[in-house]
């Protein structure tokens, strides 16, 4: 919403400075987005008269001018070719800072001749690129007058950002009213001069009738016919007003409607009545109807838009834009004025569907003042007749003014209770009065107000509290510290939430970088990760690449890994902790820690052999997350039934009883190919909420540590087993052979080749025995070794290697 200061002063009696007006607007909630104030920079420049101009004694291209400033005559040296005696010019006196902020004019001596100022060009004032000579003013330009004022540049233009609730401030008058409430001047009465609204007497009945088919879409339509108008240019004052805010003056009839739209937030339309076929009807559009709009574009309508139509078809989109064929031209003689109310929701929807932003829509979707329809059409009539002549008809009225009258009670104590600042009752009353609420103060401290027709946004007591507070000033609300519920800060996160942080920082410490990737991806990619149910397909995706909710964290991380590789960074470690989606219910999302590694796990290095990432890196990551979040490590089982996006022979699933805690593995090469990413690439997913939370039943104390006084004993074993026998089976058998003594079983070698028959493998491991109450004898050690041999052979069908 843009308006000029002079326009504001049509409605506001004030001598407040521009800065104060702007600060107050922002403090009122009418945020000033920008001010164009050319007068400020141009303030020192004034009209002067060159009395004489003589050649500079020491320079061919310079002249010595005697300049009359109105307050005296000074000598100025000037280099402009057009400087001459008798010329009215613009003078920058000594001390002037030029608009570029860099040059300040000083008293000086130029080639031996004193100079006391500068005669300026348009470019030097930042007005244009014109720099062939100094500005030449008309002869009648009054001496000493501000140049900005002379040129009409002293009218700053203010632009405010309007919140959707403030329909009233979509007009200059509403803004003036707010400023008056805040003490910046007083609101002028809305009468007299060009804003007169007294009823105009009709000279005839309107030959154009109006009917409304849908009163919800158009509750009230007031029209008037004016015959015999002459549509020419609008007067200078109106053109200046519109130009200042960036609207191009078109013709008197159009300019009048634009003026009232901005002045009192009243969008109007004027038809060329001679183009109308029969009466006017406000109705809902039929699908397929078309309109050539005033913006020159053609629109095809659906079956839910409010239109103004005649017998032949659609004339305009109600509250949005008029049609070109029925619009006014220079040749227009008879007009029909439309001043109506339209449903804000439907108006907004129409504008949105067709992509039309107009000044009318801006106001109708916020809500046009339902109580001002009649006075607005009178005002419009008066302006048109004043500018274009013509004979007005009686009003044509269809529908009725909707009931907008309502009363609200404000308990004056609520301002302090809710706002935290005491505003005296008299001040509350004053604020509401100036805002147009006509408050009545009762003995019990309540204020009842009728809500004015232009404040459809004020619905309840809290709204009135806001009115009082914002006018009183949010800055006057004393800052109050929050009372602390506890002397010492309690944890803000639950143990469950805390685990997410553990997972993140553990993975980062392991060399993975935390990524945050989209929660969505393409359906084509999702297919490779189990797909998504229809309920997770976005109805309005931003692009086909991002059209379903992700079923897994891996695809976006794999894609990110590929992008890094494409940029030349092939050794990638990325993780993310975030949601994966199973279905569309609130419970249908899992919090997952997922990660990928690609390229070299150990890069080429002088001291250690390079090594690509492999499944055991992903396994270690998954296990580290599980340990960090407190999964009971000893009871984990690993199965080899990972889903299809993993390499079937190089992946595993981590289980705890019936619960799946996570999975890891090489990503299936077919999936990588489909995603266009080079392998090998390994990944893992840990389902954090599947990990049981540790129970804090016995407080914070740990189980008592029992240390053995006896040395542990280590024995190595090697078994030849079938190639298919899993190491885990061997380890479990060895561990189970003597649960009291066997503390640890660590595999240190896995061998296939000469000495081991094909189809078999040798697994070697160290068993650590931890005696608790005495040193073991050799015989006792041998006995345990024997039990291990029997247990492993029985469990695996393998044999102890000699």
């Amino acid at each position: 919403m843009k308006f000029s200061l002079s326009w504001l002063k049509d409605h506001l009696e004030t001598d407040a400075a521009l800065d104060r007006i702007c600060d107050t607007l922002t403090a009122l909630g009418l945020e000033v987005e920008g001010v164009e104030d050319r007068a400020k920079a141009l303030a020192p420049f004034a009209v002067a008269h060159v009395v004489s101009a003589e050649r500079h004694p020491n320079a061919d291209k310079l002249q010595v001018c005697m300049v009359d400033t109105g307050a005296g005559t000074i000598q100025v040296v000037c280099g402009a070719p057009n400087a001459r005696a008798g010329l009215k010019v613009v003078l920058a006196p000594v001390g002037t800072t030029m608009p570029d902020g860099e040059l300040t004019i000083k008293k000086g001596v130029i080639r031996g001749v004193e100079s006391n100022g500068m005669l300026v060009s348009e470019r030097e004032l930042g007005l244009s690129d014109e720099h062939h000579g100094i500005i030449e003013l008309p002869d009648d330009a009054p001496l000493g007058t501000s140049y900005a004022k002379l040129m009409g540049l002293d009218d700053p233009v203010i632009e405010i950002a309007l919140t959707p609730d403030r329909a009233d401030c979509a007009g200059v008058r509403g803004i003036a009213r707010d400023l008056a409430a805040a003490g910046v001047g007083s609101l002028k009465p809305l009468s007299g001069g060009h804003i007169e609204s007294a009823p105009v007497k009709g000279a005839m009945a309107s030959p154009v009738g109006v009917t409304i088919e849908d009163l919800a879409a158009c509750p009230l339509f007031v029209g008037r016919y004016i015959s015999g108008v002459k549509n020419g240019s609008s007067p200078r004052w109106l053109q200046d007003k519109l130009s200042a805010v960036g609207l191009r003056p078109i013709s008197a009839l159009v300019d009048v409607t634009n003026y009232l739209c901005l002045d009192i937030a009243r969008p109007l339309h004027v038809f060329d009545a001679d183009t109308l076929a029969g009466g006017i009807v406000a109705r809902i559009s039929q699908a397929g109807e078309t309109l050539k709009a005033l913006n020159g574009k053609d629109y095809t309508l659906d079956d839910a838009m409010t239109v103004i139509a005649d017998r032949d078809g659609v004339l305009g989109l109600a509250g949005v834009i008029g049609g070109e064929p029925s619009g006014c031209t220079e040749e227009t003689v008879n007009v029909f004025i439309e001043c109506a109310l339209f449903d804000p929701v439907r108006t907004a929807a129409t504008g949105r569907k067709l992509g039309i932003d107009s000044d009318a829509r801006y106001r109708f979707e916020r809500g046009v003042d339902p109580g001002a329809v009649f006075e607005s059409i009178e005002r419009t009539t008066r302006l048109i007749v004043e500018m274009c002549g013509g004979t007005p008809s009686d009003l044509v009225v269809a529908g009725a003014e909707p009931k907008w009258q309502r009363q609200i009670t404000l308990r004056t104590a609520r301002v302090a209770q809710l706002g935290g600042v005491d505003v005296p009752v008299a001040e509350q009353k004053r604020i509401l009065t100036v805002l147009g609420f006509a408050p009545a103060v009762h003995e019990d401290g309540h204020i009842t107000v009728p809500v004015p027709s232009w404040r459809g946004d004020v619905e309840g007591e809290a709204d009135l509290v806001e009115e009082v507070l914002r006018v009183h000033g949010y800055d006057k609300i004393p800052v109050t510290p929050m009372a602390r519920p506890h002397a010492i800060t309690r944890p803000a996160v639950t143990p469950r939430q805390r685990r997410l942080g553990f997972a993140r920082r553990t993975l980062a410490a392991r060399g993975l970088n935390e990524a945050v990737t989209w929660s969505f991806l393409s359906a084509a990619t999702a297919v490779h990760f189990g797909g998504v149910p229809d309920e997770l397909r976005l109805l309005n995706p931003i692009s086909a690449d991002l059209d379903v909710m992700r079923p897994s964290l891996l695809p976006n991380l794999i894609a990110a890994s590929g992008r890094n590789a494409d940029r030349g960074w092939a050794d990638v470690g990325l993780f993310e902790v975030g949601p994966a989606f199973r279905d569309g219910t609130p419970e249908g999302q899992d919090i997952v820690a997922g990660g990928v590694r690609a390229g070299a796990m150990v890069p080429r290095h002088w001291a250690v052999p390079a090594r690509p990432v492999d499944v055991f890196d992903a396994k270690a990551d998954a296990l580290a997350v599980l340990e960090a979040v407190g999964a009971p490590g000893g009871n984990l089982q690993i199965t080899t039934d990972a889903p299809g996006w993993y390499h079937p022979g190089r992946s595993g699933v981590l289980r705890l009883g019936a619960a799946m805690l996570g999975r890891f593995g090489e990503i299936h090469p077919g999936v990588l190919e489909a995603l266009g990413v080079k392998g090998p690439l390994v990944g893992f997913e840990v389902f954090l909420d599947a990990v049981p939370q540790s129970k804090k039943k016995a407080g914070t104390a740990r189980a008592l540590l029992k240390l053995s006084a006896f040395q542990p004993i280590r024995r190595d074993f090697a078994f030849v087993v079938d190639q298919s026998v899993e190491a885990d089976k061997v380890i479990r058998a060895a561990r189970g052979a003597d649960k009291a003594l066997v503390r640890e079983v660590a595999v240190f070698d896995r061998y296939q080749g000469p000495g081991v028959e094909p189809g078999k493998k040798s697994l070697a491991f160290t068993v650590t025995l931890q005696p608790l109450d005495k040193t073991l004898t050799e015989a006792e050690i041998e006995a345990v070794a024997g039990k291990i041999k029997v247990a492993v052979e029985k469990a695996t069908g393998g044999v102890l290697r000699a």
Partner: protein
Amino acid sequence: MVDSLKAEILGAIGATTDPAALEEVRVAALGKKGRVTALMKDLGGLDPEARKARGAALNVLKDEIAAALNQRKAELQGAALAARLESERLDVTLPARPETEGRIHPITQTIDEITAIFADMGFTVAEGPDVEGDFYNFTALNIPPEHPARQMHDTFYLPDAPDGAKRVLRTHTSPVQIRTMLANKPPIRIIAPGRTYRSDYDMTHTPMFHQVEALVIDEATHMGHLKGAIIEFCRAFFDVDDLPVRFRPSFFPFTEPSAEVDIGCSRKGGELKLGNYGDWLEIMGCGMVHPKVLANCGIDPAKYQGYAFGMGIERIAMLKYGIPDLRTFFEADLRWLKHYGFLPLDMPSLAQGLAR
């Protein structure tokens, strides 16, 4: 004679250059057939007086030789060790074995910082789902169907739930307020950080971003408290003690009165600096929870009141850490993560400081 022998043997000891030669000198002097040993054997043929004197002299000689042998032995061992260590010299300017440490994403770090600050003001962290019913995302927040305010958000829609309810990706974290109020009785004091979604993608918008929402409901909290909490937060988070904070009236359907919050800044020379420089930068919206929202959540607005505010996490992270482009947060570019990310052990706390 003893003196000359002593000089001779000590000379021989000093002349040795390796442990074997030294051993030879020892044997030649003190061994069974050694020269000093031989002299000791000759003592028997002397008269007692002479034997006593000579014996004492020989014992002194023996001790001196033994001491010289030990000293020389240590010298030789030291030299040998030095020689060995010299031969073991490595180029320690070679790089150490590779280790990698990852980084924590600025969004995580910022959420942890926000949590640390609000924990100190007695808030706890609440959560809600990303896929929301439109009741929670809109209706309960006093944004009725077809209200123009719904157009303020470019909402992503999912197919309707089986019961006909509309499903959306939450456009803000405010539905967590609703879930919290429906599930808990006042007093309530929560923050809700999380992912949010709007259908917008350009220089300054991404279809997914993060917000944090705060909600306080009790019988006495008013706008003065709202100002207090936000000012404290802004100054602690941005680490600027005198950061100016301004409250401007604004409009949100779910608060009344409503405000937008600006912090002081300077944009001189195209560089953004936070502090008391006279210019303003908008960072969040806030207000007193609308009575209709309370009522929608089964909380009596005649008895309870409170405030809510919300802000963009990426936005304040960009301001605090000088990150120029929102879109880069989600690109998972390793160079970016290394540069703008945080060390895993750099856990924000008020005790340790929120930022290094």
